[in-house]
């Protein structure tokens, strides 16, 4: 079984870091993972998107998917391409502090006869929580923690370890704040509200 997670945001929101931590955490739990990041030209302010695929066998899906099991949305500005890949049953975790847009697709917005295809949406004020923690840049980790709690795609321990493994040595001072961000995120959505795997337990 393979589970797709698409992430979107604007440059500077640490979207790629969140994707990398998610993929690395899955490997720590013995699963297989793949991810592909795509960015606009600039470091900050351009689009930044990522696709993570996690499975219990070597990944066969191509790194660009045409529909996704789930999504994490940090910002609305460049989210339309992702929106078009959502299925009616997709799980979407949204940074509600910044997101200002409709979940309707272009089709359903203009065509009143279009079927209701709004996926399952879970709102988390990730930027607000992170700002309150004094770590505004940690918002993507708050969202990731919330996503993990909801889906149990990966566990909190693996996320914390993967985060430590992903931070370059010159950013070591942020490890503590990032741990708090992941933990607070993990508390902010109901556990196992939308489980990723049929049975609890870890794939080999």
């Amino acid at each position, binding site marked *: 079984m393979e589970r797709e997670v698409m992430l979107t945001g604007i440059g500077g929101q640490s979207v790629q870091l969140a994707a990398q931590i998610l993929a690395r955490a899955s490997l720590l739990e013995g699963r*297989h993972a*793949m*991810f592909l990041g795509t960015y606009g030209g600039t470091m900050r302010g351009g689009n930044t998107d990522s696709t993570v695929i996690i499975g219990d066998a*070597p990944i066969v899906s*191509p*790194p660009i998917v*045409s529909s996704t099991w789930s999504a994490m949305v940090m910002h609305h500005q460049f989210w339309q391409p992702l929106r078009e890949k959502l299925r009616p049953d997709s799980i979407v975790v949204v940074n509600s502090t910044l997101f200002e847009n409709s979940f309707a697709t272009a089709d359903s917005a203009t065509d009143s006869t279009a079927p209701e295809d709004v996926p399952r949406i879970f709102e988390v004020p990730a930027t607000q929580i992170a700002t309150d923690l004094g770590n505004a840049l940690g918002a993507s980790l708050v969202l990731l923690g919330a996503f993990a709690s909801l889906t149990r795609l990966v566990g909190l321990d693996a996320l914390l370890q993967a985060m430590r493994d992903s931070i370059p040595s010159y950013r070591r001072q942020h490890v503590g704040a990032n741990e708090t961000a992941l933990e607070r995120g993990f508390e902010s959505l109901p556990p196992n509200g939308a489980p990723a795997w049929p049975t609890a337990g870890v794939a080999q």
Partner: protein
Amino acid sequence: MTRTLMEGSEAIATAAVAAGCRFFAGYPMTPFTEVLENFGKRLPAVGGVCINAESEIEAIGMTWGALATGARAATGSTGQGLALMQESLSEITRAELPLVVFHMARGQGDYYQATRGGGHGDYRHIVYAPIDVREAVELTELAFDRADHWRNPVQIYGDYLLAHTSEGVEFTADPFVPVAKDWAVDGSLGGSGRSRNINPIGMQKGSKSIDPESFWKRLQVKHDQIEASEARFESESTEDAELLVVAFGSVARFVRHVVRELRSEGRKVGYARPISLWPFPAEALAAAARGTQRVAVLEQNAGQMIDDVRLSVLGSVPVVGIGGISSDSAGFGMGPLLDTRVIRGRIESALENLEVST
């Protein structure tokens, strides 16, 4: 063994260093740049050297020198940079040096360049086109092995997706044991009357003249042997297929996915992939195509590999191209064709055309 998350470029450099590569020289160009960066990170730690050469031409020259001393060495670029290197690529083949080239192309439009070469004279390079990062690791290890075995260049043909996708990879290869190379120059035979000569024009020591014809014929024999023994191929669901879809490299990953989807819906479609672009797995492909009504080639270019597919099936079954040029706005080859919905559409209409015409 645990799987480590690595971007394709990092996995390739790691696999190369594990395979004993100790020298790399390159010049930055998207999407190859990260391959260079990763060699730059890894080689000094194992006593190797990575040079950010001042041009692609100098990069391959430096690699030539390192190879001549017997070191495992590699260079790389995109199609543009390889175009600049062509003179050296063909002459290094004649100097019989085991060069490995990491070609991270901007899409699949460099198939001709990789398999035919833009250099002068009769020369051949083994070309592997990995479908994903895990296979790139295996083929990188194999590339150094085959390059040494044949004393012939081997190219890894990747692209943006291969270089930039991260996957969990394992490195299981046996530790590298240096290969004895009595032909390599170390200076030691000076003054002995038997000094060595790494020479691309067939010039022998003690002789003022060269004999190009017999020299080139000897190389041809070697290339014929490589052609007969080094082809690699993968296929699925070909037994009762009415349509066989052929693709290579990253694009094949999309095609394989779609063919599996269609198969699970009962459609009679098969999948075939040349893993080595040269030697082209003509016999295996012809066998896979036997019994089908049509072969469809899905490549991300104006139609290049289709020539080799046609030469493989030799008119026994019609061959059509269902791919095409496809790019992002930067020209890196990340075009809209890289979408399973689009590819499914192309394969479905090829299946429908089949029904119409039969």
